């Protein structure tokens, strides 16, 4: 009984952490540009696929991971420079469609460059499970949760202790006012894409040993990350983590106790339920509509 529950909890926290990581990416870009970046899932895919292809080309694993993160970051920067920045004055829906076009383009490119097969990645520190009260904990899960904690601490320090981080926060509160006090808002936008693509790629590398990686892996992960960001309240990176954990654990519990076929549906039902009662997510800022 307990072992079963613990097992579901572990797998829920593991995927939840990944959803949270993807969700932070959505929140950071949303904060600096009000755009929902649907290419976020593609950064995850690039992280996983590039690592796999670099390793198969003979590059040692740590270097391959760094290379994959670098590639995703370059793609993120290019996306901002060539797609988002020229269209800064377009309506938000238009910007969303541009990111959707970009994600289709990136998926297509990945299929041409790599392939459409499923690849697995070797776990960072083996796959001998650790036994906890009858439940099995994979070392990779520890890596995932550990990385998440490191990233959360890093982000907290960045946003609260550095000038650049504070400038980013200021921009998200009020873009014009930030510009008036001398913050280069355009660089902030670029930085948000750098951060999000890096985090996305890290998530993609971390999850690959558990759930494989393939050219369309980013689609569902992207949607779940978006859900995490929304449940937590858009624009609140820490809310995204909590949102991710809620979605992940709910999914794992549903899969375990109710029906694995409906686990994705339950995640979305929870989101709808949260939104019906709290239209701005759990920790979202209250939006005051001005006339």
């Amino acid at each position, binding site marked *: 009984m307990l072992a079963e529950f613990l097992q579901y909890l572990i797998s829920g926290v593991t995927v939840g952490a990944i959803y949270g990581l993807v969700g932070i990416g959505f929140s950071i870009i949303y904060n600096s540009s009000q755009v929902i970046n649907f290419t976020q899932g593609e950064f995850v895919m690039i992280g996983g696929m590039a690592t796999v292809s670099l390793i198969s080309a003979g590059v040692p694993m740590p270097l391959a991971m760094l290379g994959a993160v670098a590639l995703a970051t370059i793609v993120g920067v290019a996306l901002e420079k060539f797609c988002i920045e020229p269209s800064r004055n377009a309506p938000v829906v238009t910007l969303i469609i*541009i990111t959707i076009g970009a994600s289709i*383009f990136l998926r*297509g490119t990945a299929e041409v460059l790599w392939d459409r097969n499923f690849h697995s990645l070797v776990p960072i520190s083996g796959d001998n499970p650790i036994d906890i009260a009858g439940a099995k904990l994979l070392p990779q899960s520890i890596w995932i949760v550990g990385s998440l904690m490191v990233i959360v601490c890093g982000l907290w320090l960045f946003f609260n202790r550095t000038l650049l981080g504070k400038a980013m926060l200021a921009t998200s509160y009020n873009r014009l006012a930030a510009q008036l006090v001398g913050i280069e808002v355009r660089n902030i936008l670029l930085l948000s894409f750098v951060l999000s693509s890096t985090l996305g790629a890290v998530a993609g590398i971390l999850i690959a040993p558990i759930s494989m990686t393939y050219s369309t892996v980013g689609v569902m992960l992207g949607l779940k990350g978006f859900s995490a960001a*929304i449940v937590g309240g858009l624009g609140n990176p820490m809310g995204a983590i909590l949102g991710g954990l809620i979605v992940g654990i709910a999914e794992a519990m549903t899969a375990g106790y109710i029906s694995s*076929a*409906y686990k994705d*549906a339950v995640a979305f039902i929870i989101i709808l339920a949260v939104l019906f009662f709290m239209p701005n997510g759990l920790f979202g800022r209250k939006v005051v509509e001005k006339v």
Partner: protein
Amino acid sequence: MNWRQPHTGGMVMLLAVMAVLPLFLDNSFQYEIAIKVALNAAVCVGLNLLIGYTGQISLGHAGFFALGAYSSAILTDRYGLPPMAAMLTGALGVGLLSFIIARPILKLKGHYLAMGTLGMGVIISIVLNQEADFTGGPDGMSVAALTIFGWEPVTEFQWYWIAVGFLALCVWLSLNLINSPVGRALRAVHGSEIAARTMGIDTTHYKVLVFVVSAVMACLAGSLFAHYNGYITPSKADFFYSIELVTMVVLGGMASTFGAVIGAVVLTVVPQVLTVFENYEMMVFGGVLMGMIIFMHKGLLPTLSEFIGKRFHEPDKR
């Protein structure tokens, strides 16, 4: 740009294009594309009322399309209803469903609304995939032929007229709605919901109304598609199809009924043309989509008519 203003001009032009088009279609494959274009366009015309005019995004309209398709398939196959009765029952059911969920869902704003509608669409798609006893699961199910009061359309040519007839009806309805007090209320909601409310407009009522209208249009188009195709799979409820529909509306030009039609034409025909690129198809499609929207923020039709306006009517402009 005044040729578009009295909407009758655009309507006459659309009907003329529909009437002349068969002269240029010479095989059943081309007819098939034309029919799919017309049905997609009909959904987009409805969706444009919601997104373009009222400013409420929906990432779940594929769900309504699929519900229409499946209610036609299931009610004729499992319960022996005549196709027309099944279609109307489906439309009534979807109308009721969308009416019930419209209130809580349309309370959401912006990206939260996008998430809410997306969740709704995904749930519909998962149910269609899982309830294999009714829907045949991911493999889909076959759909009986359409009969309209005993007459059964068989040739592509007959289906073409049904599809474009339905599209013309949707366009006509949409134009009338926009040019009525309802349309002005919708645009007021788009401009500023609070301002509209202070002016005494029951914004919730109008938002719900337009949501239901667009859902029923999608549902009827889905029914027609199911009968025409003779087969239906849950892929039509997919998130991607919802995205495709929204993209058609945005690409064509928001808040422009004929723009929605043009968006549907482009995004249905382009993938057919791109099949020559084989493996590179998806890459090229994504690139083309991105490029078109980056260079034409307002969408195809508004950009084009602005361009023509500048070229030929220079003196009239300001």
